[in-house]
């Protein structure tokens, strides 16, 4: 009797497995591979009871995609591809003619389309900061928040835009000596 009870769940497991394989369609007996498989090896092998699920693919939310895009934008605009191909040094150096000491040079002088790695990254950061500042301003004007948060967002936004613009103008003035003259 206990034998029978033990084999019954095995049969059930097998039949559940086969039904899952065949996929709710009525043609259980038409498939030759199914019959072959039923014979060998699953007549003497017992498939284990697993609780696997196919990974479900759900699209990420819009704001997740936006933050990924912001990261990519930062890389492109800092001249990352330029860094990979031309391989400039992280920071340049020049020798002081009077004392002979080696001084670092942050901005590559002489031409518009050239950079060192660090100046690219810092400028890219300033651009992204300016963009985030405008986003913070928009968030500050959203009505469904506490007033203190709105105020802090707007202050952060305004200061971000201000700093980003001032720094960027400063950078470009250092890089191109004749700027706006």
């Amino acid at each position, binding site marked *: 009797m206990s034998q029978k009870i033990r084999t019954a769940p095995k049969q059930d497991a097998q039949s559940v497995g086969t039904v899952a394989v065949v*996929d*709710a*369609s009525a043609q259980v007996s038409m498939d030759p591979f199914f019959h072959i498989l039923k014979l060998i090896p699953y007549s003497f092998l017992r498939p284990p009871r697993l609780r696997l699920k196919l990974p479900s693919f759900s*699209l990420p939310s*819009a*704001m997740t*995609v*936006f933050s990924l*895009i*912001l990261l*990519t*934008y930062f890389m*492109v*605009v*800092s*001249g*990352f*591809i*330029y860094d*990979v*191909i*031309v391989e400039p040094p992280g920071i340049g150096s020049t020798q002081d003619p009077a004392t002979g000491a080696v001084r670092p040079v942050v901005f590559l002088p002489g031409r*518009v*389309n*050239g*950079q060192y790695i660090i*100046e*690219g990254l810092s*400028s*890219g950061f300033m*651009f*992204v900061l*300016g*963009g*985030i*500042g*405008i*986003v913070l*301003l*928009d968030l500050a*004007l959203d*009505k*469904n*928040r*506490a*007033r203190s948060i709105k105020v802090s967002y*707007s202050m952060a936004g*305004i200061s971000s*835009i201000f700093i*980003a*613009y001032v720094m*960027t103008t400063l*950078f*470009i003035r250092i*890089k*191109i000596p*004749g*700027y*706006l003259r």
Partner: protein
Amino acid sequence: MATVTNTPVSDLLKSFKLKTKQQELLIRVSILCLVYILAFIIRLFSVLRYESMIHEFDPYFNYRTTLYLTQNGFYDFWNWFDYESWYPLGRIIGGTLYPGLMVTAVLIYRILHFLRFAVHIREVCVLTAPFFASNTTLVAYFFGKEIWDTGAGLVAAILIAICPGYISRSVAGSYDNEGVAIFALLFTFYLFVKAVNTGSLAWSLASAFGYFYMVSAWGGYVFIINLIPLYVLVLLITGRYSMRLYIAYNCMYVLGMLLAMQIRFVGFQHVQSGEHMAAMGVFFLMQVFYFLDWVKHMLSDTKLFQAFLRITVTCAVAVGTIALGLGMLSGYISPWTGRFYSLLDPTYAKDHIPIIASVSEHQPTAWSSFMFDYHILLFLFPAGLYFCFKRLSDATIFIVMYGLTSMYFAGVMVRLILVATPAVCLISAIAVSATVKNLTVLLRSKNKGVLTGSTKGSSSSKASSKALLDQSQPFQKNGAIALLFGAFYLLSKYATHCTWVTSEAYSSPSIVLAARGAHGNRVIFDDYREAYFWLRQNTPADAKVMSWWDYGYQITAMGNRTVIVDNNTWNNTHIATVGRAMSSYEDEAIEIMRSLDVDYVLVVFGGVTGYSSDDINKFLWMVRIGGGVFPVIKEPDYLVNGEYRVDKGAAPKMLNCLMYKLCYYRFGEMLTEYGKPPGYDRARGVEIGNKDIKLEHLEEAFTTSNWIVRIYKVKPPNNRW
């Protein structure tokens, strides 16, 4: 009640008072007219400073072909075989150019002549690019209106009118494909987005014709035929499949493909080339989607449909992959060409194709190039992306994709900043418009009582929220006014920057050089045209000129002489032969020159003026390209410890090669700068190594007044004893 005196004057004035809608229309139309005129006149700096002439190198070829078209008509132009370039190979011009630009210019020329304005074709060519830039601003307005609203459209028109990224290739005199192509690109995209939004067959067909114009204008049409399928794919993935999308894409793809095959240069690439296969794949995928939709409509059993869906998608993907694989293996579908492959893998050109890597426009972009060409748009771009993501629709998804893909390509190659400019301007316009709208809403919000404040329920008690709101209203209004002034300040700085950049950096004709003299006066070097005119006047009509490929188009157009290689660079071996001749000793070089029937050699030399884009600075590229085909030329032979030098410590092969001799012939006696020895090269900043140069097989024919262009005549072989 007070009585109002009705004078006839006030009655007259009242009859002129417009309704608000009409006022708005008047403001919009006047803004667009002003922007149209602004876009035209900001590009006229070089015409006002120098004269109305064609700039750079490539536009001279376009000008020559336009001249041929006006003189000989369309069928002769379409079937033209040019024996005056690439001697002795010749070039099939009819089948190797994009005719859109020339046909457009000739059309404008004929219209003007019909209206009895007897202009020269050169004036039409010079002013074609600014005219199309103005048209682009109009298209940007309509596009912005389609994506967001009329405010964004107006801001987009203003931004793109003066954006330096666009001005750099569409200034007056820059008669190049891009001037017309950017208009065609934006126009095609606008028509396609309009078709997807409305689902109308008329707009889809219009977008197909817009695509045809783009294919006829520029090789960059590959961007359209890859971006639009990518966009369709993204829409399908995000579940936005609709009948409108089906109609729009099908019409545009099929009709656009058939029309594109009318251009001989493109030919059957739409079915044969790997770069166009994405469009075909998405076309078939759309048919599968439509089929599945129809089956779903017919079936009532969802489970059955799920099974059917899975089987069909698997089969479709499998069949597609097999077909693609068969096509590529059998060679019917050609792989991606080097030019476009180097966009996906930027390191490819550096290692394998030195000709592509040598062009300065093909270098990757540094941050300062971005800042130079975009200024504050770089801040507004991420903010605009945020607004687009907040309000996703079919149209905003398109502009986001266009912006992202074009920004990536702009990062890979400096020249492609031009393609990214319309997207950046549109997205920035969205940011500006949304921010200004938010601020003005804040300004206009009246004290609608405290009802609005209390219903939000953001603070602890209603009483305190009422009080806070009352106190914050004037503060908010002042804050909004201050921020609006800040925005106005930033935009005015943008305008100042754009005008300065256009005036200083992008308005130089390149064929005429300008410099500041010792007393701050402007000195003009017109050596190039002097040399080409000398060639035209003083050499026999069938003389062949050998020079580096940069100057080929200008020599053929202005000097009217046959050249060996020119800017088309279609034959790498021929260019490598010229490179080999330039980098060999004189005895070996004369063999090559005699085999090519060369009569004159032209070199460009900047040692006297300090001009840095001369042939000595380009010499290493000649060595690399020559060495790529003829292994006898080795680059390390010309370098000393990996360094490129021309002074006493230079490599002996460098000091005696043909290019060195031709550039520095008789230069050793020349005093170029006060306090420096004779033979001081101002461009390299050193005194040259080999001052005593004797030429055996060439003799000097002409040197321009500032020694920039030097022409040598190949002596005929000695008589036998």
